[in-house]
């Protein structure tokens, strides 16, 4: 029953929403760009493979497509078994960190929030370092003990932070951030101590902490993929609620958002995808904070567009960052975390200057 608008509602002219169409085109454009960048990234490596061959090999893998192989089988192995899982894992991790960052920023109404804010990274790092220092290694489900401990560490520390911050049935955001920062600092100091006393294992530990895709295989993609897909889907469902959370909790409640439930669901989803992303590749900084802000500066703050655009931009960014990490000083690999910071920070500063808008969050 429309009690307010008894007269016939005038059609709202689409001229009032030109930016909606622009953002929809941006999603489409980035989707195509992601495919292009992924294929482009697979051409580079110790053996240069032509772009066209990559496309042929990839298309020949699709069902119902029959292309006679005109390439050596080693090329196919390099593409499908070595480069492709690495590119896909980089894309998945980039997407996961970017959307998790956007979610935390919206949920906490804090522009400095990133996927590691509430102790995920430090917990993962502690778990991984313990894994490195164990005198034995154990393989189950196709991967080693280090990712398993990293994943466990991330979840345990978030559980601790959540329970510390909870006041009765509510979860005050400031307490949550403070508890996360405090616990993160504790884990960080333990990690530092363990690194210093780790002897010859120090190099491996530090390399893990800075992030690397050098050990990517399909088995890891298979583990990370379901977490990221489910987590991203859940977060996307609540995009409109995140917009409203951006007001403040009181107004959000008055507009029909169950803020406590929303916080719990989104915290769980964002934390799970972050933990899944970091457990194999280490803590890659900057993606989670820089990508959502860059997207916000270019296409506006509406989470219904911000979230999918962040997923795509994050994936493209990390695929390219990993490409630089493995080719710039080949055969030596640079930690990808170093690349994301070196490329990301100036780009972000450029965006900030270009817009010259005092407030953008």
């Amino acid at each position, binding site marked *: 029953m429309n009690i307010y608008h008894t007269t016939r509602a005038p059609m709202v002219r689409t001229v009032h929403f030109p930016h909606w169409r622009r953002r929809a085109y941006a999603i489409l454009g980035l989707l195509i760009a992601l495919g292009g960048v992924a294929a482009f990234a697979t051409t580079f490596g110790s053996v240069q493979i032509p772009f066209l061959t990559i496309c042929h090999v990839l298309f020949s893998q699709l069902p119902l497509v029959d292309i006679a192989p005109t390439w050596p089988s080693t090329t196919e192995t390099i593409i499908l078994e070595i480069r492709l899982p690495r590119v896909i894992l980089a894309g998945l991790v980039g997407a996961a960190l970017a959307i998790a960052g956007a979610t935390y920023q919206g949920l906490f109404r804090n522009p400095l929030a990133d996927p590691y804010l509430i102790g995920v990274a430090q917990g993962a790092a502690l778990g991984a370092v313990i894994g490195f220092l164990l005198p034995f290694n154990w393989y189950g489900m196709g991967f080693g003990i280090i990712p398993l401990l990293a994943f466990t560490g991330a979840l345990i520390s978030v559980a601790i932070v959540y329970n510390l911050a909870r006041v009765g049935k509510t979860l005050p955001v400031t307490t949550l951030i403070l508890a996360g920062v405090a616990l993160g600092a504790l884990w960080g100091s333990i990690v530092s101590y363990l690194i210093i006393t780790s002897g010859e294992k120090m190099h491996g530990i530090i390399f893990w902490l800075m992030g690397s895709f050098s050990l990517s295989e399909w088995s890891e993609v298979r583990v990370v993929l379901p977490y990221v897909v489910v987590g991203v889907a859940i977060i996307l469902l609540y995009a409109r609620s995140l917009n*409203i959370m951006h007001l403040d909790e009181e107004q959000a409640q008055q507009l029909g958002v169950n803020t406590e439930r929303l916080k719990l669901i989104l915290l769980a989803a964002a934390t799970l995808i972050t933990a899944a992303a970091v457990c194999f590749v280490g803590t890659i900084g900057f993606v989670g904070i820089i990508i959502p802000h860059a997207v916000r500066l270019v296409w506006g703050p509406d989470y219904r567009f911000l979230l999918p655009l962040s997923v795509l931009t994050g994936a493209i960014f990390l695929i390219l960052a990993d490409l630089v990490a493995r080719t710039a000083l080949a055969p030596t690999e640079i930690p990808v975390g170093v690349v994301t910071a070196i490329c990301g920070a100036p780009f972000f500063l450029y965006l900030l200057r270009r817009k010259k808008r005092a407030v953008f969050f």
Partner: protein
Amino acid sequence: MIKLELQNVWLAYGSEVVVKDITFQVMPGEMVGLIGPNGSGKSTIIKAISRVISLYSGKILLDGKDVFKIPRRDLARLLGVVPQMPLLPSVFTAFEIVLMGRNPHLGLLQYEGARDLAITWQAMEKTATHTLAERRVGELSGGEIQRLVIARVLAQEPKSILLDEPTANLDISHQVEILDLIKNLCLENKLTVVAALHDLNLASQYCDRLILINNGRVHAEGTPRQVINPRNIKEVYGADGCVYTHPDIDLPVVLLKAGSSQKAKVKEALETNGD
């Protein structure tokens, strides 16, 4: 058409009780004003009805149902709130803010359709905010933001509206415009309206009934004529002999005189005693 009922409501922040044993009813099509000094508990009552703070004891019924047992989304379809000095994120456009009012009408998998956009647009036209649609909130003035939030409540299409100082940031022409709009909606659609107002003259002219609150208790309740009288004003606000009758309509108005505040009186008394 819904009735709002507060039964023996006590409210507290932590252990500090701020609202004591308040009972009142608001009928459909009725506009009730909550008046009283700063800190008397008006805003707290508005917050409790909209379920932002929990009850210490008592009961709040909307349409006969306990407000605290209605799911938030359903409650937001029944009850819209214009908060006092709302904070809005500066990067959203005015239209995006008003569109948020449609939230309780949309499911998890739904996007705003043509109808939601049209309702939003109409709400903006009614509040004269449609010319601001593409502007960012950060560029708007306090009064424009106030009207935007009222547009958002209209887009929400609730059956009951709570307003917490809706005219605080507005100039006099917009004060009258907004209250006229709310009053008309209230009468035409039989809305249940509760407004916390600090301006006694506006409260007197727009409200069918006034509830005067002092220190968290109901001090007086009734028509503006019954509530706004020299004795009540002196007891609650400590101001002397300042109630007159509006020259055009038969309603009380409050006009203050410089130096008539309680503090000035005390100072004067001290000075005379000292002599």
